[in-house]
């Protein structure tokens, strides 16, 4: 992103509540998904959109030319805030956590190519290039907040401040929390107990420090989603590992139970959709031929051709707080041509050549803003209904 500022480094005792930044009437939308489901990429590319106005491709093509009432929060100046919670010493009896916050601000970078590297580097490179000290998995979580504004169509008060949030580097914790409803918290002060953590397979066999960190992560997540106004569920297609597939299905089923029990709006984003061959075909066609109007039918694709491997699960939810047509989206935050090469479009909007001298180009994003806009719309609809 434009500029990264690493600012605070504080030491806090575990369990003490962090003072929330004052935000008036902010709507919080939680993004959840299994590990490597695309949460980080989704956040960073959306932030890129709000900070740098990265273009987004829509498939199927939108009749309104892609107009969405989403805006960067220019008043705030901060597009994305990432706070790393790190246990410096897992054996510390007080269980202290250190926090480091990075702010990604709304100023463009000179080299857009570098921007791509930062945004799309593989997990290994991320650690070296830009991100957190490795290993990230077992000793830290990252709370990500993206600030933006949403203006309800026809709304009288103009746009409203919104926050998109996730606990990054915690896909395993997110999966466990939603999968096992015995872990669910009912209040923002609640705490996941060691005893209920035993619902997680093999929990007792873990190292004590990992068990403790996991329990804290679950508590953090539980409190975080307890205060959420809506949830965006990221589902990753074409998972090679059967365990990952099972984890994702269990998470999805858990999220359905959760939103039903809390009466929360849910929007589903099938991330990395460029991995789905038919969908990629549409992207490629749209990039090569600027006049191409895609009529791709996502509902038909998902239900009848099982694009996300969710089969009857999605069918069962239809009409029960979820509409396949309006609440499920195929998205791709960083389209890849395969073999790790990003797909760029140049200034003219056509595919930038991959070989030869480095070309100015911006990464291709597909439908990335749609789930967010829909989540905002549903939250505000619900609020309006309550106010009436």
């Amino acid at each position, binding site marked *: 992103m434009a500029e990264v500022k690493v600012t605070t480094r504080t030491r806090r005792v575990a369990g003490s509540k962090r003072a929330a930044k004052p935000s008036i009437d902010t709507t919080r939308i939680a993004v959840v998904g299994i590990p490597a489901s695309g949460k980080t990429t989704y956040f960073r590319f959306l932030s890129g959109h709000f900070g740098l106005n990265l273009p987004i491709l829509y498939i199927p093509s939108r009749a309104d030319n892609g107009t969405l009432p989403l805006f960067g929060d220019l008043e705030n100046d901060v597009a994305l805030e990432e706070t790393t919670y790190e246990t410096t010493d897992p054996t510390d009896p007080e269980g202290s956590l250190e926090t480091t916050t990075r702010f990604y601000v709304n100023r463009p970078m000179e080299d857009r190519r570098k921007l791509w590297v930062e945004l799309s580097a593989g997990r290994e490179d991320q650690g070296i290039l830009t991100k957190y000290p490795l290993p990230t998995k077992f000793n830290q979580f990252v709370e990500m907040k993206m600030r933006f504004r949403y203006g309800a169509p026809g709304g009288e008060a103009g746009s409203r401040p919104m926050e998109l949030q996730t606990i990054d580097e915690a896909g395993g914790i997110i999966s466990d929390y939603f999968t*096992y409803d*015995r872990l669910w918290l009912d209040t923002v002060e609640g705490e996941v107990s060691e005893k209920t953590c035993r*619902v*997680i*397979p093999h929990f007792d066999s873990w190292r004590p420090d990992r068990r403790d960190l996991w329990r804290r992560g679950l508590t953090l997540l539980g409190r975080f989603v307890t205060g959420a106004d809506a949830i965006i569920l990221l589902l990753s297609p074409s998972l090679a590992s059967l365990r990952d597939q099972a984890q994702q299905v269990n998470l999805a089923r858990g999220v359905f139970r959760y939103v039903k029990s809390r009466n929360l709006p849910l929007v589903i984003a099938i991330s990395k959709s460029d991995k789905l061959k038919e969908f990629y075909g549409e992207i490629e066609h749209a990039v090569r031929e600027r006049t191409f109007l895609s009529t791709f039918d996502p509902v038909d694709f998902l239900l009848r051709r099982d694009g996300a491997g969710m089969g009857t*699960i999605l*069918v*069962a939810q239809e009409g029960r707080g979820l509409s396949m047509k309006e609440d499920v989206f195929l998205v791709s935050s960083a389209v890849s041509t395969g073999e790790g090469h990003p797909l760029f479009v140049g200034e003219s909007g056509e595919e930038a050549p991959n070989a030869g001298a480095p070309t100015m180009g911006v990464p291709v994003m597909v439908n990335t803003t749609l789930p967010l806009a829909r989540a905002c719309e549903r939250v505000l609809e619900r609020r309006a209904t309550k106010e009436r």
Partner: protein
Amino acid sequence: MEGNGTRAAASPRERNVLLLDLSKSMLAPLPEPQNGHAEHQKIEVARTAVFRILQDAAASGTLFGLVTFTETVRVPVPLGEIRRENLPYIENLISMLAPSGRSAIWDAMAVGADLLRMGTDGVRGNLVLVTDGWDNASQRFDVRASSGTSLGAGRLDLGPYLLPANSRLTLRIIGIGNGAERDKGVDAGRMNQFLAQLTDRAQQLGLPPAFSFQEVTTGSALFAQMVHAFIDVGYEGDQAIEELHPEELARHAASAARALKEPQQHATVSRIQPGRMSTPPAAEAAYREAPEMEIDVVAAGPAGAPAYLKERYGPLGEVVEAYLSGQYDRALELLARSQAVLPPVTQLYWEARVQFARHAVVEAARALLQAWTEAERLPEASQVPILRRLAMLQARMQNDKETETLVKFIDNTEHGLAQSDPKTRERLMALFGKLMELRGTYQLTRLAGEGDLQDAALKHEAAVEEVFSLLQDARLDLSVGGPVIEGALDFIEICLAEMR
């Protein structure tokens, strides 16, 4: 060891007392007319069978007692739980039991009854008498030759002593040899008279008459009467649940889920009925006069058959041994010889298994079909695990890996939990049962038309949710249960995810 009468609520089936004749005639050889079988002394055969019974009692946790008799009645093993660590000592003790003298059969039966006596609840349990002779030494008890005849001077009537009011006694008498001529075999006439008197008494008292007399004339028949078994051996490449890598476990579970999702391609699964997933506890099993069948799966190591097969399982052990060493024709030959003494389902199963190994597919299929029919006749306690073994063989014959994986996993789990708390075992098997039931709701989502699809999907998801809820409770309650339990729960969890 637990003494007489200390378990007031125990069921008759959990309490077994064996009365073993150690009179001098037990040293005589027992004919084995079939070629290739060496003659054995009666006592040798009986000892081998007792070892096997003891091992089984140690494995199952049932109470067991041993009474031996010559003209003196002794109790070498008082009624109690046979602990595995005590087994070598008890076996050593039994190996030293040497026949001598005469037979005090009636006095021994009274002592056996005393071990099973539970105060006002009468005599409760199973009494098995193994004898080769006539009573010629009892001093305290006698049996009337016929109704109304007198007893020996100063002796008590064994019938009422053995069967007081409120009793729940089963009595099996295994008589060795034909006793038409005195001292050449069991006194069959007297035994049958006695059982008739006991039956009359049971009817008068309103008790179930559960008394039988079986005459055996060969060593194989004696062993088979004492040890009624279905044994199986694992297949090559079998891996224990706890040895599976998590990704491997996931692969197995996904494969097994296909067996549930595609019933047409995996018809064998329908033979494993979800409601009959677990072996019912002995106490709940309906009474049958036929002896309970022992079911065991023997692990075949890389070196081939376990060394003790013949000793533990008699003629069937020899068949299995030949099979494991690749001598299929010999295995079939031995099987044919043992036909009379083996339970039909065991004999047919092994015929199918050996024929399949010989690539005689038609013969194997025919034998297996008959085995299914025989299995349906078994008491439920034996039937459930045997059906699974038949299903596994059938799946293998049909190259149906998915069904084989599913059934094998369920079977391995139950086997792996043999020593654990029965409630835990039942709970896990019930979970497997619930998982199997999802076949029905899933199938409806495949068959439903456009309009009904959502309704079917909704029902299926609700059913999945119910099982998942039970699974979570099991995870919380059984978190320290060990690798077999965890493996089973992981398997079910992944199967659930696959049912979509």
